[in-house]
């Protein structure tokens, strides 16, 4: 970019040209800007994935509907699942981790700022590569465009014999490339938390948010690697005549399932532990009490992390494992319920005896608690292997994991958005619009996902583009589809509120919630260096100590 003067700093660069601003965003290594990039990128894909879901739900609104062809429907559920997990949920939790872990531990940036930028851009490239399949997936065969193998892409459907063209390759490479970024960010988060804490902040005085991001990053390192390995093997199968998963040449379809789910199950915790992190910061501040049982919360998080590597084959109860393997994975899965239950009880105990303020972040957290409880209880049902033989791969499972991902993770994320929006933008969101968002989305969520359990219990398998009338599924599918439009309206209000408020909202000040962690001690939005002087802390709630010198933690 040609420019007349060299910009030496933001203060004396009053009217920067658009090119300069873009250049700044593309070349930035600032953890806050990268965090925002992750978040904006994820919101874009959230809207795209939501449109894909809406297309599926319109197709299923009545039996024997012809809104889209089976091919298109299959592409929609593949792209919806892949997008929501890899290009919405992961980047958005990385975005919040990137933005707030350094601020909360009193650091000036992540440990490896340039690795941070590389990780974001390579992940973003992965998403674009996946979506390029709509254009380039045909290959020379003229067969298919977007991948249609399902988000867990079971072998041998991905073999050349069943998946012509390049659509599966775009899926494989898109995830492989974004996996490199995930591993980079995870390494970075671990190094940051372990090495850059400010003076006085021992591991035991770190905010739970930082603890949970540390555990999440450890899970990413261990979980994404097997997926990356499996993607490499699949590519070797497809192009170099290897036979890892090619059943027609003696390969094993079950091997892929093991590789995928040893990634896939910890992945659920990669996404939900950051949601725990948001809730663990928001509930105390809005209840005006410290988190109940900090040490056991840390212990529960770490043990969820360990247990999450012992449960993968509960996704495979119908694959024909012997009775001992099925029993093992049943009990290991049930055991996850223990630390998860501890967390739910501790959050309620944090509210107990407090003076709860019902700001929008807290509303989302209370809904999170209710919905995550239900998601956990349906998870217990699915851990009972014989029950899973009926429920697995039915709409009950679809309802269950959407209860986790939407009812749990997304509600936690919405809470986090409203809680930290004043810090990130320096401005307050519009409160009335945020309430509209909350209630519309809550109603839509329950219409869709409560009623989605029922066709599953009544025998409706997932991933079918149409169904027979007279099985008792019709009315439930209709209600489920109606709920989608409420959710869509909520999302539009949410995005509109963020855009409008970041430009026109009232100034929020440094500490609008009267909160206790270090990010609220600096300006909103924080300056590039975060803290003019690095803070020193004596307890888990440094700002409480400052505000209440007579009763420090």
């Amino acid at each position, binding site marked *: 970019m040609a420019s007349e003067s060299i910009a030496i700093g933001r203060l004396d660069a009053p009217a920067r040209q658009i090119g300069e601003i873009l250049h700044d965003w593309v070349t930035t290594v600032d953890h806050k800007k990268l965090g925002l990039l992750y978040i904006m990128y994820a919101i874009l894909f959230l809207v795209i994935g939501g449109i894909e879901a809406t297309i599926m739900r319109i197709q299923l609104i009545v039996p024997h509907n012809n809104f889209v062809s089976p091919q298109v429907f299959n592409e929609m559920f593949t792209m919806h699942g892949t997008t929501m997990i890899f290009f919405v949920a992961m980047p958005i939790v990385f975005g919040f981790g990137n933005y707030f872990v350094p601020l909360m531990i009193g650091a000036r940036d992540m440990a490896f700022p340039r690795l941070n930028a590389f990780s974001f851009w390579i992940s973003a490239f992965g998403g674009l590569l996946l979506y390029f399949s709509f254009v380039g997936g045909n290959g020379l065969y003229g067969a298919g465009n977007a991948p249609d193998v399902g988000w867990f892409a079971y072998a041998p459907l991905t073999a050349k014999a069943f998946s012509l063209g390049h659509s599966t390759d775009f899926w494989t490479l898109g995830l492989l490339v974004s996996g490199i970024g995930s591993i980079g960010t995870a390494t970075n988060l671990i190094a940051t938390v372990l090495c850059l804490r400010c003076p006085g902040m021992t591991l035991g005085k770190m905010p739970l948010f930082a603890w949970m991001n540390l555990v999440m990053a450890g899970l990413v390192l261990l979980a994404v690697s097997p997926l990356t390995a499996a993607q490499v093997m699949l590519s070797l199968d497809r192009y170099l005549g290897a036979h890892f998963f090619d059943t027609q040449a*003696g390969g094993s379809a079950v091997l892929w399932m093991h590789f995928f789910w040893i990634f896939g199950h910890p992945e659920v915790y990669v996404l939900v532990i950051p949601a725990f992190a948001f809730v663990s910061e928001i509930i105390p501040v809005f209840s*005006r009490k410290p988190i109940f049982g900090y040490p056991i919360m840390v212990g529960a998080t770490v043990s969820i992390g360990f247990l999450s590597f012992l449960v993968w084959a509960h996704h495979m109860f*119908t694959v024909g494992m012997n009775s001992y393997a099925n029993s093992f994975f049943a009990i290991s899965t*049930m055991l996850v319920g223990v630390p998860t239950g501890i967390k739910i009880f501790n959050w309620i105990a944090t509210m107990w005896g407090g003076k709860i303020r019902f700001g929008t972040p807290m509303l989302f957290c209370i809904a999170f608690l209710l919905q995550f409880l239900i998601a956990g209880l349906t998870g217990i049902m699915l851990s009972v292997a014989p029950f899973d*033989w*009926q429920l697995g791969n039915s709409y009950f499972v679809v309802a269950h994991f959407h209860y986790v991902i939407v009812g749990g993770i997304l509600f936690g994320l919405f809470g986090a958005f409203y809680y930290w929006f004043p810090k990130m933008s320096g401005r307050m969101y519009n409160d009335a619009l945020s309430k509209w968002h909350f209630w519309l989305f809550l109603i839509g969520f329950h219409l869709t996902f409560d009623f989605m359990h029922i066709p599953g219990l009544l025998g409706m398998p997932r991933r079918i583009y149409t169904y027979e009338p007279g099985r008792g599924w019709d009315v439930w599918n209709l209600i489920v589809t109606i709920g989608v439009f409420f959710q869509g309206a909520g999302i539009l209000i949410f995005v509109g509120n963020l855009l409008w408020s970041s430009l026109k909202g009232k100034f929020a000040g440094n500490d609008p919630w009267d909160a206790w962690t270090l990010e609220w001690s600096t300006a909103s939005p924080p300056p590039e260096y975060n803290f003019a002087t690095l803070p020193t802390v004596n307890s888990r709630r440094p700002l409480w100590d400052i505000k209440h010198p007579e009763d420090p933690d």
Partner: protein
Amino acid sequence: MLASLLLSASVGVGAQTNTPLPHMFDPRSTPADGIYRISRFVLSITGIIFVVVVFLLAYATVKFRQRAGDEDEPPQVYGSNQVELAWTVLPVLVVLILFLATARVIHSIQRTAKPAGAIEVVAIGHQFWWEFRYPALGVVTANELHVPVSDPSHPTPTFITLLSADTDHSFWVPQLAGKTDLIPNHPNSTWIDPHEVGLYLGQCAQYCGTQHAKMLLRVDVEPREAFDRWVQDEKKPAQVTDAVSAGRRVFETTACVNCHTITGTVADGRFGPDLTHLMSRATIASGAATNTHANLRSWIKNPDDLKPGSLMPAMQLSDKDIDALTAYLETLR
């Protein structure tokens, strides 16, 4: 939980209007019954947990809300070892109970030995239909499994070996048993012992490709004599009638024979369903349509009209040939 309440309501409505829906809460076979029993147990335990925790959450939300004008900070409580220990130990006990109940059902279903009088079936999943072979009885059929009813005092269960010719599939008839996958290179098995005569519906429960949705499954449970009669009929070679020789010629001179078998003729393909006794089946295209003259003709003319993405090609036959071919197939009883 709301869902399970609604479910019990919907099941109740189903029972009252006397139109039974083919779901897992109306089991008609020992494995499905075992699952039904443990599902009731699990639903009641999770139901109790739900009620207790929701009560605590609702109580905390209402009771401890900030009152207007009250800006003081509440007492700062950091935790309680006793309370935390209690809500660690109690869930562990619940898990232990659930696990013991679960392991019992897993073992009782998976480790049942095959008795002497059992019927043996090999089920092979194809994109997008079911092949059923009875090796001991010399019968091959498709999409509609026939089994004898099993009298609990004199059980004649059916043991099914599950194979796949191409991608993963899953065999699921909720009223008879939980689902088990059909995976290439990975033989599985399942068993059923239906206690009541009737038609049981199911469908493929593992995504297997474009037409996964229309890979439907029917199990005809018949009295023993009717089943034996069916076996005798199925074992006969195809009927030969001169009246339809034109249609037979069309069949045998096009690519039909590469994929379909009609016993007693040159047709011995195995990619598609065995058609020797096509008219003994109530449906075509793996349950996508009833086996009527109009549907059969439309299916032959262009399979994609009924089931877009099915692997059977439209053979581009003239209307005259299609009529003749349909007439021929309709003699295959």
